[in-house]
């Protein structure tokens, strides 16, 4: 019952770039899993439709192949012995995060360039018996040197960064805290917090929200010396539900006082993830709300999309009307799937209504809207419309019942979590707020609009001592 190994495929040619050794299996074992993946890919209509857990019938013991795609790379993780597939996905995710930590953007060329490091990382993170070993980036950096110009130059001159047991050998695993390096020194002690919040909503044709949720994430970039013990207070912790924490956070402390007390790892990490639930804002309130009351408490969607779509023989006509509400929106993209067999689309957008493209590979119409400014135009002129027709090889085309809308909100629009830097000697100010927000939604005949909004961040610079 374990992870059998890890195979990283290049999606350009579906050939493995790096794979573990699969020592206790036949040589055909990894190939069978790659074949199973390719067969499933050939069968699926859309790449997203492949079941992430593929059954691989092997004569002696059936196994499964868990897979995940990241940009141009596909991670295959064969498992056997009735292991929980979540274990495999958690491992792939962890390994991917380590790769990102080491190489920045993880693509096929970067992995080829650094294959020896990838191999060492695989060896250190996954034991031959199929259990994850060292997965904390801080501890790994002591064992496997990240690629840097220095190490390259050193290796040219014949001096290795890991030249002997005297230097790194001693520092590896010498830290009493598994997730933090020992003996760190920084000239400027600073720590950055980025709060990223994502709105994800489904809206019906009468613009009523069917479901919406705001998911948040606090990313930290820590550059502090020594072993700092931090305390972070949230101003409205009661609106935060379903939290999850980095393993450095003292869970018992959070259970008692809803504060985050932790010794941070060095570098970038995700401190916590949470869901913003305004209906839980009153701790003592009755948990059961009526549907109407609950919907009022939900986060509102900053625009409406009306659509009318009529299907005729071998095609159809449609009209989309997008009306933003008060707030400013950026990067609004509306996508409408026109059904299998759709061949072309002709549209005209209202003046200043952005541009459209038809993506034949996905049978999808994409409409990109110009940024809307806050209160810049009167509400009457604010509407953007897109009218058009499409043709299809199918006699009765079946377009999607919903359009997908993504958008970006200005900084601070959601703000479920507010940090309170209240612990000793901390001061902070909000500056350099960067914010991206995506919203997806919309829909055939305007029945449902669904959206996802993502992200705003406050970057706070704080210093200790």
């Amino acid at each position, binding site marked *: 019952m374990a992870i059998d190994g890890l195979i990283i495929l290049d999606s350009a040619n579906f050939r493995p770039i790096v794979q573990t050794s699969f020592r206790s299996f036949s040589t055909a074992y990894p190939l069978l899993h790659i074949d199973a993946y390719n067969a499933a890919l050939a069968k699926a209509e859309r790449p997203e439709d492949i079941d992430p857990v593929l059954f691989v019938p092997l004569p002696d013991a059936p196994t499964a192949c868990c897979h995940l795609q990241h940009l141009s790379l596909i991670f295959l993780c064969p498992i056997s012995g009735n292991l929980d597939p*979540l274990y495999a996905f958690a491992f792939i995710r962890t390994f991917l995060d380590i790769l990102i930590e080491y190489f920045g953007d993880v693509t096929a060329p970067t992995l080829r360039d650094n294959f020896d490091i990838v191999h060492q990382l695989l060896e250190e993170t996954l034991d031959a*018996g199929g259990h994850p070993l060292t997965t904390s980036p801080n501890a790994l950096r002591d064992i496997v040197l990240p690629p840097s110009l220095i190490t390259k130059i050193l290796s*040219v001159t014949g001096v290795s960064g890991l030249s002997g047991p005297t230097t790194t050998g001693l520092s590896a695993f010498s830290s009493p805290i598994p997730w933090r390096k020992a003996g760190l020194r920084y000239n400027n002690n600073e720590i950055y917090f980025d709060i990223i919040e994502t709105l994800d909503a489904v809206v019906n044709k009468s613009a009523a929200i069917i479901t919406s949720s705001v998911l948040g994430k606090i990313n930290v970039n820590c550059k502090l010396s020594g072993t700092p013990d931090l305390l972070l207070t949230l101003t409205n912790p009661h609106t935060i539900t379903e939290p999850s924490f980095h393993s450095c956070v003292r869970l018992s402390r959070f259970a008692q006082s809803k504060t985050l007390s932790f010794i941070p790892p060095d570098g970038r990490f995700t401190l916590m993830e949470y869901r913003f639930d305004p209906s839980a804002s009153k701790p003592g309130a009755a948990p059961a709300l009526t549907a109407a009351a609950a919907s009022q408490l939900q986060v509102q969607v900053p625009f409406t999309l009306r659509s009318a779509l009529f299907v005729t023989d071998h095609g159809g006509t449609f009209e989309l009307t997008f009306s933003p509400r008060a707030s400013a929106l950026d990067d609004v993209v509306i996508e409408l799937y026109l059904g299998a067999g759709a061949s072309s689309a002709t549209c005209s957008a209202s003046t200043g209504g952005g541009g459209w493209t038809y993506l034949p590979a996905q049978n999808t119409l994409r409409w990109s809207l110009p940024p809307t400014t806050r209160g810049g135009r009167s509400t009457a002129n604010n509407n953007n419309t897109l009218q058009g027709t499409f043709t299809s090889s199918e006699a009765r085309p079946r377009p999607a019942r919903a359009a997908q809308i993504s958008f970006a909100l200005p900084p601070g629009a959601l703000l479920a979590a507010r940090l309170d830097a209240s612990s000793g000697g901390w001061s902070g100010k909000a500056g350099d707020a960067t914010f991206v927000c995506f919203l997806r939604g919309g829909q055939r005949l305007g029945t449902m609009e669904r959206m996802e909004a993502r992200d705003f961040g406050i970057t706070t610079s704080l210093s200790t001592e």
Partner: protein
Amino acid sequence: MSGINFNSWTENATRLGMRIQETLTERTKDLSLMSSGAGYYDTGEDKAKYIKAHLESGSDREKLEAMKRLIAMISKGRNVSEYFAQVVKNVASPNLEVRKLVYIYLLRYAEAEPDLALLSINTFQRDLADSSPLIRAMALRVLSGIRVPTIASLVVVAIKKCAADTSPYVRKAAALSIPKCHSLDESQLPSLIEILSTLLRDRSPLSVGSVAIAFEAVCPTRLDLLHPHYRRLCRVLIDVDEWGQVSLLELLIRYARTMLPRPTASRDSLGKETEEPLFQSRNPAVILSVTRAFYYLALPSRHHKIVHPLLRLLAISPEVERVVLAYILSISHISSHLFSPHYTRFIVRADDSTRVKHTKAHILRNFITADNSQALLREFVDYTDDVDEALVAGAILGIGHIARTLPESTAQCLNAYSVVANAVVELKSLVQSQMQSGAAHVGSSSAPLTIVERLAYHIDEIRQAQARACVVWLVGVVPWAPDVLRKIAKSFRNETVPVKFQAVTLAAKLLVLSPSHDMLIQLGNYVFALARYDRNYDVRDRGRMLQQLLAGVVPTIGAADVKDIGGVVLRRAQVRVVLFEGKESAQPHAVHNDTRERLGTLGLVLGRDTPHERILPDWLEQGVESILRDSQDDAPPTPAVTAIGHIAPRSGVGTWTGTGGHSSPVVVLSPAGSGGPSPAGSMPNKGAWTDLEKFYASESESEDEDSEEEEEEEEEEEEEEEEEEEEEEEEEEEAREGSDDGEEESDHQSGDDEGRRVGPPRTSEEDSDVKRSSKRVPIQ
């Protein structure tokens, strides 16, 4: 003057600049060669020639280059075992980077070249004593990874050495080596178990997870070894790393099911402080393990704890969502009330993957209650427009489900149906149930008939096989449409098997209703003749069967070609009963009665049976005696340990019995004095326990006395004490109270306790360690 000076100065500068540039280009040529790994990755055959020479050269740089090329060739799937001899020579390289690559190489090819691999073993053994924990751990990992059976005993010695290492990282490596050594040579089991029980006493949370892995791999049935460690393992759980938490929880869940009494309202085996915070882990696998613990160990009243953590996992990634939905689906079959208030979290999105859409629709169907039926009906109606056939089918099933669950909404649901494949199937069962319930819903009972009429009218447009078959069936139930039979007979040859079945049946039904109608007899004969020569033998059988059935009603049917084979001939009324009031069609929703405990298994996710089911044993009504779990912190010489090395040969110490239906052996204690180190006998508070029967009696007598006092003591003793544990220690204390020297014992205990909290000096343990080891027979 100054001009000349300036000139010479610039000249010098240019010369210097050129010089620097030259060196730089020279260097960067080297640099680009070295730094771009792609150069190695695409090593051609010509370069491969130099690998051997480079490996034998004196320069670390050349060695490193050669090793990188080898590793690159391994990644590309080439067999590079021919270089084994040269690589082995570098195993003692002072350059750590070279050495690590050599390790990676050796692990892969050692099995193929056992003789040469043996050459490197001395180096690894020497490395086991290195000052760096990294090197020690790496040496052990490589040593145990060399799958050469002859060195098994050497590996055992190495593991044993590392199990006593000062660095928890090395101890972790030692634990992980145990399963490898076991698979190499099974006869080493006794000594491996001994090492394992040493490791079980490890106080560092870092290595505990790996020990649990080793335990599951080497001696999964020896749960009795865990008795003295169980409570401490529960306490450290929260400090273990995330992967270790998964393995440890798995082991603890199994232990609890095997050894603890079934939980009751007053006695729950899950700790608030130990397991519950783990729900806030960021690792989905941990969440699922805790969910397993709560769902399979706790009382149903505490099952609600699993809801929010699982809901949170849905948002992590599409892959995790897919797996978690499968688990929630399985939970919703049995206890849908847990998740149904959160049905909005399962709303199907237009861009979900096929599998996710299907599972969500299924989950929503399980959630249908009177309260949410209106909202869900609207959702399901929306889904019937989806691009995905599977979701449309699921949505239609859902509408039917609502109609059946809440009869008053039937009319609404009927309106919702359009002529879609599954709608017809659902309609069939609705019409059937309506006709059976008779006048129960007089108002709406005309609706099905008109719909059936409409369907019959549209028969040419309905293409999906199942739907077409159903329409033909429906027409038979509402017997007025010979025209449908005519249409079907015309296209009989091209119909699918289910439609053919229903066509033959319809012909038979119509013939029974009006046996003397000429047209019908001709039509019937035609259909039966077609069925008789059909390519599908089931259709042929069905036709023949119905033909025989009709023999007594319509004698002309088949008279020409079917010879009388005797037997009972049914009368018309009888045939009518057979054809019209036959069994109700099977419910489309098979009742899900898979009650096996499969949460968190691959089999459940894939929806198929897989071998190695991790099925939990059922609870023991009584559980094993809690004294077995008395903390070893108080009583250092753990009894089980003394017995482990010898447990196989010496059966006289304990009586082994299988418990219930599963194979985990349980130690049943015999009173001390039977000779040998019995568990009770080696405990310090032996006096109280000498007479076990007396002990049991006292336990049951003084159940409720002094509980307050005990609790106070408990709080002082340990912050993160488990509820269940408290109770058990209570019992134990009570037992001591019954005996004369009980007071002293507990004093001694608390003193020892303080020592434990303060730090290492535990002389009593060390003393007894010495004693024990002197008693132990050497393994080798």
